């Protein structure tokens, strides 16, 4: 189901990324204030936007799961959130590097995007521990979906709150140009954003394909076991499973 979409997605991602890199390093003008450092902007901000959209998408998919009770939606929600958490980590690290290069500190509190991400990351860091601490798969999926929806709503509220607070302390924003970016910077930014979104979609599809395959394999195995019980009792098709925390919800 997912495998067929992978090839075109991966190709599109590769193409978009190539174009993006070309634009970033050979087309976009050098920022007057920040100099070469500003190139991180084309990495950090698209990552942040895609991660945010990923969390929101995870919430929407979770709502679909609760509505339809189809576990496929829960799997999709899990992967979206899981990917966004990884991207979120990237946002924090690249943001920290940018802060160090721009202002000499490895962390700044008056950059609203970075601070909001720290809080959102801290919240979603509990997502997987929450899942793994619930054994019953049906309940695990339901509780995770409730969390995902609340988390998505929270993410929006949190950004509003942090922004409001920052307005009082003369925030320094990574993008000096902010709203009125020159056209060539803006195009570069859009292409970078597109490439990042395509990358997310590709990785999402990849992980889902792998999870889906694992699930179906498990079903086949169980079916074979049941048949084996009817033909030859005592024949074992499975080695005893090693004890380890489930790497994914079933």
């Amino acid at each position, binding site marked *: 189901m997912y495998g067929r979409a992978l090839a075109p997605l991966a190709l599109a991602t590769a193409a978009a990324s190539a174009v993006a890199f070309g634009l970033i390093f050979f087309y976009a003008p050098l920022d007057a204030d920040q100099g070469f450092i500003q190139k991180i902007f084309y990495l950090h901000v698209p990552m942040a936007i895609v991660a945010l959209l990923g969390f929101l998408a995870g919430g929407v998919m979770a709502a679909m799961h609760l509505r339809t009770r189809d576990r496929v939606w829960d799997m999709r929600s899990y992967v979206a959130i899981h990917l966004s958490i990884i991207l979120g980590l990237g946002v924090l690290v690249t943001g920290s590097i940018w802060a160090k290069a721009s202002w000499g500190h490895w962390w700044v509190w008056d950059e609203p995007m970075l601070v909001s991400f720290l*809080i959102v990351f801290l919240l979603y860091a*509990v997502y997987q521990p*929450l899942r793994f601490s*619930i054994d019953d798969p049906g309940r695990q999926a339901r509780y995770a979906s409730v969390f995902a*929806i*609340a988390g998505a709503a*929270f993410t929006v509220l949190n950004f509003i709150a942090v922004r409001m607070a920052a307005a009082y302390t003369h925030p320094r924003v990574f993008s000096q140009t902010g709203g009125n970016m020159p056209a060539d910077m803006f195009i570069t930014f859009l292409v970078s954003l597109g490439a990042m979104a395509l990358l997310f979609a590709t990785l999402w599809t990849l992980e889902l394909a792998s999870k889906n395959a694992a699930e179906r394999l498990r079903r086949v195995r169980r079916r074979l076991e049941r048949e084996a019980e009817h033909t030859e009792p005592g024949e074992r098709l499975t080695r005893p499973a090693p004890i380890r925390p489930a790497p994914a919800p079933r």
Partner: protein
Amino acid sequence: MVATALAILRKDLRVELRAREAVPAMALFTVTAFVLFHFGFDRDRLDGDVAAGTLWVTLLLATVLGVNRLYAAEREQGGLEAMLLAPIDRTAIFLAKAAALLLYLVALELVAVPAFGLLLLGPDLIGPLPELCALLLVADIGLAATGALVGALAAETRARELIGPLLLLPLVVPLAIAGAQATEPLFTAPGVGEDLGRWLALMGLYATIFVLLSVALFDFLLED
């Protein structure tokens, strides 16, 4: 449904009044925290942003204790399953829990705020009291909804004493932001509020969203 919610609420409150566990524990925690802050900051009196932050953060941390106890009775006596057997609207359970938590918080603040004024606050507490109470009340509504939801989420997990706080604290950051920002001018002599409207609006938005969300989602937590 309101009748059911009230019935559950009454039961919870009766249990709490008899056992006197949650609110006294929260109050004790809060006062002890104030003492810790005195030594931590090495200051006799706080004002302005430090005072505002100390008060709000302590109250939020105390809420974690309250949330912990909210479902404790049901867990220990298998009461939650029993309630589920009866044909009650799950929402009624949520409303009762959230209302109970709200009352715990209000009771806590009746003790904590004067204690804060006594122990740590430099400027006058009485002057800005009306504004402070308004802020606390709106924040408490949001806190109660979020706390009741998180408590239910954590209740069925293996590591509930850990998951509960870890979930609740990031979720209440917007309230901490709004509360501290709004309270800072109140705790700076002469204690006049600035921009209270916008922070109250933010807290109101938070409360609205989380009440609606919790009511919609709570059902899914209790089915089996």
